[in-house]
């Protein structure tokens, strides 16, 4: 019987780890908390520095993962308990009730059209609404709907039942219960990724109080053809095309009081977004407020140079002191100081401002690590204490890849994810 | 008078020049719309007959793009291409067709910019030559 591995987190790191571990002949169980695999990368419009379409390169991997003979997907599921030691770990997975018979649902979407309940759409970063019965995004894998039990009227109030009426496949099951699955795993991979730091906690940045201040992830969705504005760059206040845009780096990060570390990817994605917006609105002017321009990867500095020269992006070394709504509801006033020995403050008006918040370990990862009995570093990322084995956690047989261990970009996450497969193979060979 | 837009066929090898063309795309390098890429595994598989056929049927220009000499995925394939295409050019010249209508060049997988340059130059060059004189014969 093949040895089993549990991978926690279905973003690009988890997906790649699954594919490589499975290709080595091990049986892999991928546990993803949301209804679809894909993770953060699925939300991105394009990727730096080639501006390759994110979904286009991710989607084939998602599908390969779902179709692989050695991979079993547990979406809408969470790890609930872990016992034993390497190589005999027991992992308990809770498959949350979707209230859908997966083997019946065809993903046709008839139920979604008819569902009367509207809920803010998480995948669209709250910029649009979804229904209580939903497919998280068009390219979701598996392509099965999920009922959000918290908002479904039939489940909360026993009133409605429309989806059941329209579902010709008979897939709706309001009575469905969570199910528990135990896996005898030889090893576990933590690939739980990141969340955005909640920038509304820093009131000076105006997120929530100024309508035209958005997060970088919201901008990704706005730029995406499949996004809430069908790919039209419109600012939230009056749905007009902005002509003057500002990006603010290190929101909450590189800040001793908030997140002391650097999130590694923001300089580059802001550069990417500043190029992309110009492809949407050709005469748009973008300014990037930054502290250090960290363009350390392959082709990154050239990318920044291209943004500056070909796309007229203005890079301004300064950390703005405050953002306020301009006259009325639209536009944003940004107050900042110039470098060069002056203390002169300037206030400049922008049509729209994009915050690049620090990236933090994903919510719940701390509790998960406690369950796994692995240590965290002081920034709350998974600690990888062994110098020689930079992807090993503090506990044998539990490996880490991607952002869960340290801020890093997609290629570094993918390389690590493949590395995890080699490390598992090494460890299991030694006990074979 | 509307500007003459030549019709061009380009054979690109899978490993270098097709990848270079992809890179040009990924880099959003803009170029004229006249060139139609046909993917082949190696530039050495491009039969001289294909080039002759295209020209004799009125295609205004044919590009054959391969890996740089020494980089061929199939070891020495492009050495053969380098010998064959000049022969094709000579035959064309002998029958009164400007040999500049056929061009052989090397574009690596890393040379998106070179792909753009080759395409742009070749389109200009063929546009200057005007329509393939065999066009009228062909139709």
């Amino acid at each position, binding site marked *: 019987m093949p040895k089993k591995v549990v991978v926690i987190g279905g973003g690009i790191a988890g997906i790649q780890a699954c594919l490589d571990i499975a290709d080595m002949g091990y049986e892999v169980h991928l546990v993803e908390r949301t209804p679809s695999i894909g993770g953060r990368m699925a939300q991105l419009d394009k990727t730096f520095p*080639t501006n390759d379409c994110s979904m*286009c*390169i991710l989607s*084939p991997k998602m*599908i390969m993962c779902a179709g692989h003979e050695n991979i079993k997907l547990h979406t809408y599921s969470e790890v609930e308990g872990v016992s034993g030691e390497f190589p005999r770990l027991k992992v308990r997975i809770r498959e949350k009730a979707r209230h859908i018979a997966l083997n019946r649902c065809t993903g046709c979407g008839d139920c979604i059209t008819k569902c009367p309940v509207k809920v803010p759409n998480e995948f669209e970063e709250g910029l649009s609404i979804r229904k209580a019965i939903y497919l998280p995004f*068009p390219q*979701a894998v598996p*392509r099965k709907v999920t009922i959000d039990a918290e908002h479904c009227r039939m489940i909360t109030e026993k009133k409605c039942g429309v989806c059941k009426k329209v579902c010709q496949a008979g897939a709706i099951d309001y009575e469905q219960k969570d199910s528990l699955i135990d896996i005898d795993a030889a090893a576990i991979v933590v690939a739980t990724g990141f969340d955005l730091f909640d920038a509304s906690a820093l009131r000076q940045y105006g997120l929530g109080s100024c309508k035209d201040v958005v997060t970088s992830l919201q901008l990704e969705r706005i730029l995406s053809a*499949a996004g809430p504005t069908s790919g039209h760059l419109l600012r939230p206040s009056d749905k007009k095309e902005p002509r003057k845009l500002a990006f603010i780096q290190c929101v909450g990060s*590189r800040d*001793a009081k908030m997140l*002391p*570390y650097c999130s590694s990817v923001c300089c580059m994605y802001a550069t990417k977004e500043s190029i992309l917006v110009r492809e949407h609105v050709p005469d748009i002017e973008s300014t990037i407020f930054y502290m*250090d321009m*960290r363009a350390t*990867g392959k*082709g*990154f500095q050239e990318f920044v140079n291209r943004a500056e020269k070909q796309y007229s992006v203005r890079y301004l070394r300064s950390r703005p002191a405050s953002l306020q709504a301009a006259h009325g509801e639209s536009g944003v006033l940004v107050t900042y100081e110039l*470098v*060069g*020995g002056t203390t002169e403050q300037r206030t400049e008006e922008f049509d729209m401002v994009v915050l690049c918040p620090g990236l933090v370990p994903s919510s719940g990862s701390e509790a998960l690590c406690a369950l796994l009995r692995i240590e965290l570093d002081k*920034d709350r*990322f998974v600690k990888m204490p062994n*110098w020689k084995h*930079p992807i090993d956690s503090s506990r044998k047989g539990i490996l880490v890849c991607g952002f869960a261990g*340290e801020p890093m970009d*997609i*290629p*570094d996450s*993918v*390389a*690590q994810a*493949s*590395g995890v497969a080699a*490390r598992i193979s090494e460890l299991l060979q030694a006990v074979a | 008078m509307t500007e003459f837009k030549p019709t061009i066929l380009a054979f690109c090898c*899978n*490993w270098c020049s097709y990848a270079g063309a992809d890179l*040009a*795309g990924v880099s959003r390098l803009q170029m004229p*719309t*006249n060139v*139609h890429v*046909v993917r*082949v*595994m*190696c530039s*050495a598989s491009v*039969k001289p007959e*294909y080039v002759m056929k295209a020209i004799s*049927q*009125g*295609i205004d220009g044919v590009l054959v793009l391969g890996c740089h000499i020494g*980089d*061929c*995925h199939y*070891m020495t394939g492009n050495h*053969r291409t380098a010998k*064959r295409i000049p022969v094709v050019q000579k035959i064309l010249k002998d029958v009164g067709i400007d040999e500049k209508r056929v061009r052989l060049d090397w574009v*690596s*997988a890393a040379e998106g910019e070179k792909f753009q340059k080759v395409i742009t130059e070749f389109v200009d060059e063929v546009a200057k030559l005007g329509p393939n004189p065999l066009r009228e014969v062909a139709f």
Partner: protein
Amino acid sequence: MPRIGVFICHCGHNIASTVSVEEVAKFAATLPGVVIADHNLYSCSEEGLNSIRKSIEQNKLDRVVVAACTPRTHEPLFRSVCEQAGVNKYLFEFVNIREHCSWIHAKEPSSATEKAKRLVAMGVSKAALLEPQTEGESNVIPAALVIGGGLAGLRATASLAAQGIETHLIEKEPRLGGLLNDITTLAPYSESADTLLQELVDEVRGSKRAHIHLNSKLRGLTGFVGNFKATLDEAGKKKEIEIGAIIVATGANELQPEGEYGYGSVPGVVTQLEFERTLKRGEKPGDTVFIQCVGSRQPGREYCSRICCNTSLKNALKVLEAGGTATIIHRDIMSYGTVWEEMYRKASEKGVRFIRYTLNDIPHVRSHASGTAVDVFDETLGERIHLDANRVVLATPLISQKDSAEVGKLLKVPRDKHGFFLEAHVKLRPVEFATDGVFICGTARWPSSVRETLSQALGAAAKAAIPIKRGKVVIESITAWADPDKCAACGNCVASCPYEAIEILEQDGKRVAKVNETQCKGCGTCVAACPNDAMQQRGFTTRQLSAMIDSLVKHALEESP
């Protein structure tokens, strides 16, 4: 008559914002043999694939054309959908209307739409003539080759050996370890580089599966994934080894900044690596000034070498520990992530001085009665500053190895314009080459920290181990064959084949060319060499390619002369 289905992808707005996908689909429906032409927001999404699958079944399609992105990334996906729907995967044809059309003609939507139509017509004409194929399989030699005995190569070798795979490690120098030999401690936690190196060397030396070849270089390589034959020059002796997979870990070198900032003329001016060596010898550094981005991030060599700032931070802290003062003159401090940023903060707190310069006003280094002097304009303060130093450390970038071109040529793998090896896909295939069975890790690909190098080495080791563990590789059915009726046994194909895969044999009383399919790599050279049109390559037959030419003539010249 074939039953062809054409599926045009919007690719979000990557294609649809330039090319009128609806118009192309409408046009495709009129082409001979096409029974259905459809379009989809993302053909490669599960939804898109399902709709193709359904369409194949409903319309009883026997040929499938997808017009979308590039076959180099997406062909396997669409081929597998065809297979799932019962259509042989070689009856699929890919038309690239993104990289080769919408993306490069962004400002000419109507011309781009016309071109997309012609490309689709060419693809359909080829598809009509496609034939089903069966794939061969080949065994994999259960051994691997790692080129380069530095950190990356050592870790990759250790991993493969620990996974139970016979691994040959070749190193051109007489000792293992590469650049790590010259380094004192590893940032940020001050582990000794020697300890890490020694542990790795011991592990590799102690493994019965790892075979170390010092003073050795790769001289030749033939074969393909699963079945490579490498010729080595081991201390002057020729040696041949057979392996199933190869990892390139040839590392990088430090740029020598000849003539810059007083290097070579002003005493006390050294490179970072030279400085490491003095620290390793136990020399007291004294007051030290580090100048960042020497020879990088400027016209001519645009890139940032990723590791230099962090190395300077580490060494500046060492200087402080040894009682000297440390100043880092920089343009941006690249202390990305958690640990490097923490080191940056620690350096600031402990008294390392940071001065920011710009390319418009670079620092000047000169001799001075008591040592070396540096004059620099501090951009942040807006004033000129004079510094006295015992040492000036020039942080120069890592550059590609001198012999990387040679290695690249032998392995047939590409390098970027800086000479670093070019991976198969910068985002999602960072440790692979486009050539199956050949992998890349460490600074030969791009400057990377010790931790990153170790992770990548493991990644490459995983990729190399996969075909070996599976024991079999599938051979794509693009091999050549000879039509015995047309073959005149002239032998041109035999002479042209780079793989000696063709022989002239007696068959039914007639001498004809015969292709050995396990040896044929599908280059098609023999096809062009054949004067009788007897040689054909599967998936690229002369009929198929001629049909594409005819189609272009028809749609570009006849219909819009």
